[in-house]
């Protein structure tokens, strides 16, 4: 039998000015199980807390009800307080007689008093059914795994590693660097993208605390916050660690004319290659689908010329298990494939209609044209360049509803570059809105405008070739008339979408994606770098379209969160989690499919029946993964699952108390 003490707070006049607190205390003393009832001006103050502690000792209380403000505010305060008196901190129940009573019923003091009494009756009923709960101590492995080696992953890796933790980067491509190294200049400062990102790549590679897997993927993730076990699949590179990156192999390789992915197919590479000269690591990879040795079974030129004997045709995929305490997803973005959806722009049939990323490579001094803006069709310098914004963005019918955020600025930058590099050139930009929110962004846009870029508000309805030119038909919605531009080249600002394979990453690691496939943050405002899965964080364009400054800021934010987590050797596990009554669990596992955290797994138990032993399967809850939502308890057919701290018995007793 519980011995419950009830403590009613006046909260100065906040509660006491409306509710007749002494009357509530008198009524509370009559409730079943209550052995002590008291009131005080400020229960949360030092003397108020002392009053609770001494009452617990004096009256040998086993449970405490505090009727005061919302539990959101002071539940933790009072839990700590009753723990001081030697009670289990979870033997506390609060009645919210301020936010949900006195503050909303100021003009009806009698009814408010009656409601306060009923709210206390509910709390006493629940307190009578409370049981001690214990936080489990979860050990933390002080290492972090980062999926994706773009600027977000690199920035976070450097921050976490500088704080003294080991970091593992897993990158799918043969080099780290991501999309940022492809770009030419960055807005609004016009500093060279590669010049600021390649040193960071090198720092990451040389950092004693950072281990990088390139040409690798995350195959399997098990475990929970503080204790993940990750299987990394190292794809066969066919080049082992003896390689010095001298470059003889790709110079001698006879298989030429393979479109280079790094230049978006605008230049050619060999079958053994590094994606670009500043690649990290500077170790080539053999494209086994194109290499003569693999396709035809004979060649071996690279092996013959390699001075260190690093070429290994027999190399297979390797699987490495890494134990980490935190995981950061930073898988970045891709551009929407406009050639599948934009028939009116020619489905990609006209070579002089390119995307912004193609333009970046073209205008880049290390790119396929050596920094010259040239028409892909005939290599001539274009005189009139048309830019079309929001291709696939802000267009529910065709692509995506959202704004891709970076396009307004990079299109302004592209326009500036055309006007700067091609004397006498003309630039026409079709836009829906110009969105330049960011430090020094609006100024940059205005500068481009003053340089002579023609901004035309409207969508482009059709692009078709005529002779040597492209005819761009659109509308000027401000003047309300159709527009036709004879262009030499058209650049489309295509929508950012989650990178290919990011859905698999979300599934493998175990967190959710939003309606567009971007990774879902735990809270859009207050927890922007965490996922709803404990110990899993996110940064960069995988969470939503972003430019470089925002990506880097978010990466450092996620790194700070991870450093915070890894600074503990143990963390407290949530005690209000689901519990299985194995005696009545039928092992149907209907709960398993409901659980958003994959916290429920089948477990074999052995039962002794008269004369024999029987093995059967029951559900078992992983206390590290369970977050205590309780969705499984309702799905359980035999009623074997219950949620600690919110049990069926407790909730039913609350219902009963309120309906008396």
């Amino acid at each position, binding site marked *: 039998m519980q011995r419950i003490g009830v403590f009613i707070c006046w909260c100065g006049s906040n509660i006491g000015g409306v509710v007749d607190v002494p009357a509530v205390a008198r009524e509370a003393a009559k409730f079943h199980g209550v052995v002590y009832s008291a009131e005080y001006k400020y229960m949360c103050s030092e003397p108020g807390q002392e009053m609770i502690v001494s009452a617990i000792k004096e009256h040998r209380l086993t449970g405490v009800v505090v009727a005061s403000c919302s539990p*959101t505010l002071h539940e933790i305060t009072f839990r700590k307080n009753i723990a001081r008196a030697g009670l289990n901190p979870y033997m506390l129940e609060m009645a919210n007689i301020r936010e949900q009573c006195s503050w909303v019923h100021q003009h009806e003091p009698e009814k408010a008093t009656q409601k306060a009494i009923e709210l206390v009756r509910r709390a006493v009923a629940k307190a009578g059914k409370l049981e001690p709960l214990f936080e489990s101590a979860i050990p933390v492995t002080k290492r972090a795994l980062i999926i994706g080696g773009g600027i977000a992953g690199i920035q976070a890796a450097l921050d976490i590693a500088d704080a003294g933790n080991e970091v593992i980067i897993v990158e799918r491509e043969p080099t780290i660097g991501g999309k940022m190294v492809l770009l030419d200049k960055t807005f609004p400062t016009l500093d060279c993208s590669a010049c600021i990102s390649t040193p960071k790549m090198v720092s990451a590679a040389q950092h004693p605390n950072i281990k990088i897997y390139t040409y690798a993927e995350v195959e399997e993730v098990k475990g929970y916050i503080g204790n993940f076990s990750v299987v990394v699949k190292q794809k066969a590179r066919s080049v082992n660690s003896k390689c010095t990156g001298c470059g003889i192999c790709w110079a001698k390789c006879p298989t030429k004319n393979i479109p280079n992915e790094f230049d978006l197919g605008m230049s050619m590479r060999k079958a053994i290659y590094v994606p670009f000269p500043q690649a990290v690591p500077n170790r080539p990879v053999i494209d086994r689908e194109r290499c003569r040795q693999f396709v035809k079974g004979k060649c071996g030129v690279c092996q013959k010329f390699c001075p260190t004997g690093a070429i290994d045709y027999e190399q297979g995929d390797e699987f490495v298990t890494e134990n980490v305490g935190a995981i950061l997803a930073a898988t970045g973005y891709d551009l929407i494939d406009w050639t599948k959806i934009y028939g009116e722009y020619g489905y990609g049939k006209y070579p002089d209609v390119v995307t912004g990323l193609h333009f970046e490579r073209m205008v880049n001094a290390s790119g396929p044209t050596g920094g010259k803006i040239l028409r892909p069709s005939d290599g001539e310098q274009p005189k009139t360049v048309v830019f079309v914004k929001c291709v696939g963005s802000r267009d529910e019918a065709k692509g995506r509803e959202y704004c891709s955020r970076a396009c307004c600025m990079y299109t302004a930058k592209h326009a500036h570059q055309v006007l700067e590099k091609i004397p006498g050139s003309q630039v026409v930009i079709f836009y829906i809105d110009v969105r330049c929110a960011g430090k020094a962004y609006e100024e940059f846009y205005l500068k481009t405008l003053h340089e002579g870029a023609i901004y035309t508000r409207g969508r482009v309805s059709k692009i078709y070739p005529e002779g040597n030119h492209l005819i761009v038909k659109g509308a000027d919605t401000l003047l309300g008339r159709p527009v036709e531009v004879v262009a030499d080249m058209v650049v489309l600002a295509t929508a950012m979408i989650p990178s290919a394979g990011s859905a698999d990453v979300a599934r493998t690691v175990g967190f959710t994606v939003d309606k567009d496939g971007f990774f879902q943050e735990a809270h859009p405002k207050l927890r922007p770098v965490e996922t709803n899965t404990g110990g899993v964080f996110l940064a960069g364009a995988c969470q939503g379209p972003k430019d470089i400054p925002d990506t880097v800021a978010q990466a450092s934010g996620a790194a700070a969160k991870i450093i915070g987590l890894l600074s503990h050797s143990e963390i407290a596990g949530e005690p209000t989690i689901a519990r299985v009554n194995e005696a009545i669990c039928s092992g149907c596992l209907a709960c398993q499919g409901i659980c958003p955290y994959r916290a429920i797994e089948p477990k074999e138990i052995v039962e002794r029946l008269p004369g024999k032993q029987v093995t059967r399967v029951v559900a078992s809850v992983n206390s590290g993964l369970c977050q205590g939502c309780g969705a499984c308890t*309702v799905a359980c057919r035999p009623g074997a699952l219950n949620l600690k701290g919110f049990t069926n018995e407790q909730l039913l007793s609350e219902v009963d108390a309120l309906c008396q």
Partner: protein
Amino acid sequence: MSIENESQENWQPKIVGICCRWCTYAGADLAGISRMNYPTTVRVIRVPCSGRVNPQFIIRALQQGADGVFVSGCHPGDCHYSSGNYHARRRLQVLKKLLEFVGLEPERFQFYWISGSEGAKFAETMKKIDEQIKKLGPNKKLKRSNVFKQGDRPA
């Protein structure tokens, strides 16, 4: 008869709300912080998630004499536990149909989505449900003391 009429005049409905702690309970707190008045007939039970709400709780409340019951959680898509309110929506929709099938007025059991920032919506919703239940009068349909006369044993 006269006694019944008199008691009906003073009759105040009992409305039990089961609210998730992340959204609607916080929304109710916000209504309090903003001093938005609503009827005193509403009493809230706090649960971690609307997905925790077993239909049994609602039936029990109606049996024990609640005149109205509501469940409220985060908006679809905003669940703190990512999918709890979707499970709740399906389960409670089935329950609502069942309760209507056995003859309960649809207003007696409702479910809402009210976020932690929607204090005003919480207060408005409480006013609305209070009005609706007052119009209907006391719940007699499922109330145990009406279904079983004194001395009867519940099945």
